[in-house]
């Protein structure tokens, strides 16, 4: 049973690592929004296909397309 003298410190180290990771998670705001990720998973897969791509909010200054050439 001498192995236990190895296992005990290993257990302690693992616990410390776990707590370290937990604290990091709290600090990086991961516990701020517990509902969001659940919804995001459900709703994100479909939207990839119907997403129309980047849309400008107002008349853009320039959009350079293949054919047009906005000579400024």
């Amino acid at each position, binding site marked *: 049973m001498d192995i236990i003298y190895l296992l005990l410190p290993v257990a*302690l180290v693992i616990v410390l690592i776990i*707590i370290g990771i937990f*604290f990091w998670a*709290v600090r990086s705001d991961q516990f701020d929004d517990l509902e969001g990720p659940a919804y995001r998973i459900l709703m994100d897969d479909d939207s990839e296909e119907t*997403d129309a*791509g980047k*849309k400008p909010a107002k008349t853009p200054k320039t959009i350079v397309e293949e054919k047009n050439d906005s000579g400024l």
Partner: protein
Amino acid sequence: MTKKITPEPCFHCGLPVPDNLDIHVEYQGENKPMCCYGCQAVAQAIIDSGMDDFYKYRTSTPEKPETIVPEFLQQLKAYDTASVQKKFVTQTNDDNILEVSLILEGITCAACIWLNEKHLSSLDGVLSANINYSNHRARVRWDNSKIHLSDILESISRIGYLAHPYDPDQHQRILEKERKQQIKRLGLSGALGMQIMIFAVAMYTGNWWGIDETFKQSFRWISLALTVPILLYASSVFFKSAYRDIVNRRVGMDVPISLGISIAFIASLVSTIRGTGEVYFDSVAMFTFFLLSARYFEVGARKQTSEATEALLNLKPVIATRLINYVSNKVSSVSEQENIAVTELSIGDYLLVRPGEVIPADGIIIQGVSGINESLITGESLPVTKRSSDQVIGGSTNTENPLIIQVNKLGEDSVLSSIQRLIDEAQHTKPAIAKLADKIAAWFVSILLTVAAIVAIYWYIVDASQWLEITIATLVVSCPCALSLATPTAITAASGQLAKIGLLPKRAHALETLAHATDFVFDKTGTLTEGKIKLEKIVIYMPISGQENNIDELQALTIAASLEASSEHPIARAILASNTQSLMTVENLRHSTGLGIQGTINDNEWFIGNKEFIQQHSSFSFNTNFFDVSDLDNTSKVYLATNEQCVAIFILSDSIRQEARSLIEQLHLQHKHTHLMSGDRMESAISISDQLGIEQCLGNLKPEDKLNNVKTLQQQGAVVVMTGDGVNDAPVLAGADLSIAMGKGTQLAAAAADMILISNNIEHIYHGYQIAIKTLRIIKQNLSWALLYNLFAIPAAAMGYVEPWLAALGMSASSLVVVLNALRLNRLKLN
């Protein structure tokens, strides 16, 4: 195309579509009906940007969107100015890249958040948009050279929501930090606790089946090492609070908790050092973990409510339009105006206040005549006419005509500040009901220590070798676990029930105080009444000379609506809302502020307004007593007349909420006293209180009067529950034992109150009372159970029957019973 008989709801917002409206939006190949152009614009915008999945995901209908008007867009532009931006917008390393926090209004379900996130991310120039699903805050990062903040806000409005830049104040930041700390403590005690328990179980089994003493001793030391962080970091909350209690000569629930934890730890420490005896480290860890989680849930429920309400208080920088180089009697051009944040104003500044805008600061009118909505102070939503050299209050709304005012009071001296001071002072002197659990805690500690002393002395005399062990076992087993969990579990369970009826508590004492309430005080406008002027009745007076038929009610209504079409006055809005037929063209339209409107329709001259106005313009005289129709009540009367006679009377009033009657009756059945305290005229207050059967009625009250009246009641021993909605209610909401703010009321009221009624259904106040009573009963049951458990456990420990594993078991079992009992609240049925 057949005419629809039953109104089909609008596909976007769910409200019924008016009969004569036929607008549609194409969604996935089908034509879906829309109730207004606002909904159509929004739905079209959503579908065009490829986010029509929104309609698939949503679990409830969004709010009806405001139609975007040029004035609104103009106001949005003000958010681009440097002086406003420095409050909300954070710079990053790159000069062009800015960040802002936004609060979103109009969110009704998760799909709304998804929609906004997707829409914002798709805008060119927006680098990232993240919205928190719990508190509806958005963090947006954008490139200022490609897109401006006003564009971002505008695009959010185009899909039907409202966004406000948000600056979390000091208080919020502290709360946020505390919350994170709580989670860290919980995680720490949980992780370490589980490890400690592994060793504890090893030692328990060792006690039964034998264990090497060296192993046992190393387990003891390791458990000690693991417990120390818990003690220093996680349990420190209880120690600090207990210390504060003792210094103030009070015994709260935290004192027995700290006592239990410290004794268990010290005893275990001694055992570890001596190498013999029992250790209770697992009890310490478990106890801390249970309590921290109970508190976390209890606070979490309240935090969401306060977040939602207090945040809104910080927004709206109230942009003022300052006139540069204003010279009296000169009309200034647009180029001499500047948009500026209210915080930058100085005394003597000249401001332009357009109709519909909020007056930015206390001032005096220099030019213009208009109706001012002063519900801020009086709670009355009908505008008061003010003209040159009249004082106006910052925060009130200008309804009719543009005004030029000169600022004469700012900051501390303003009327709003004085109300805020009243609120602060009321909150400090507010009576607090001693929580039941705290009262018991005091008894518990003294009894426990006495019993421990007796046990110690007894065993010292009888069998000196065991006295310390048994005394410690006694103290540990009596650990106030069940006692301290009694209240938080009940309150947390109750908050689920409360959420169902839309009555959200903001402060810890809310539920217990509600259970003890004796007197219920109500505000009138907006609380007992809907707060909106509605057209109640049209009374036709006499046949018009020269015409064969009377004008009927519908025709009179249409004439009136046509005249009122361009007015912002609440009465005009009410008349327009009731009108269903198409408006007629009016020529020579003229408004006389505070009096009425006149115009020509189909070659007849018409006048609509109050008695004075009609008397000025018509040869008709109001000398019959037909017109004395209930002059003394809650209604307003507007008269429609021609040159010769009065044709119709429009009777408008603020309608009483349907559920008000039922609420008052049920309260009386429970032998509660009811009062009405209003800032409005005595006559309208009495009319409402008579109709509802309220016992006491007071009118013409200013904010400080309401507060003083409640204080008088409190001095007579009453426990007062105040329900209100306006800024003029905020001081009394802060001073009442328990205050409830209407969800649709002002933000200041919501911030000052202890509970928010977001369902706006006042009958739920009675349901809240029922829940409070049941919760108090469950708290009492829990406390009794905790005491009963101790009654059995302590003698058992005193006689030497209790070992650590039994102590741990007892603690968990008693806590479990308390939690299960509290869960019974979920089965509460309300009538």
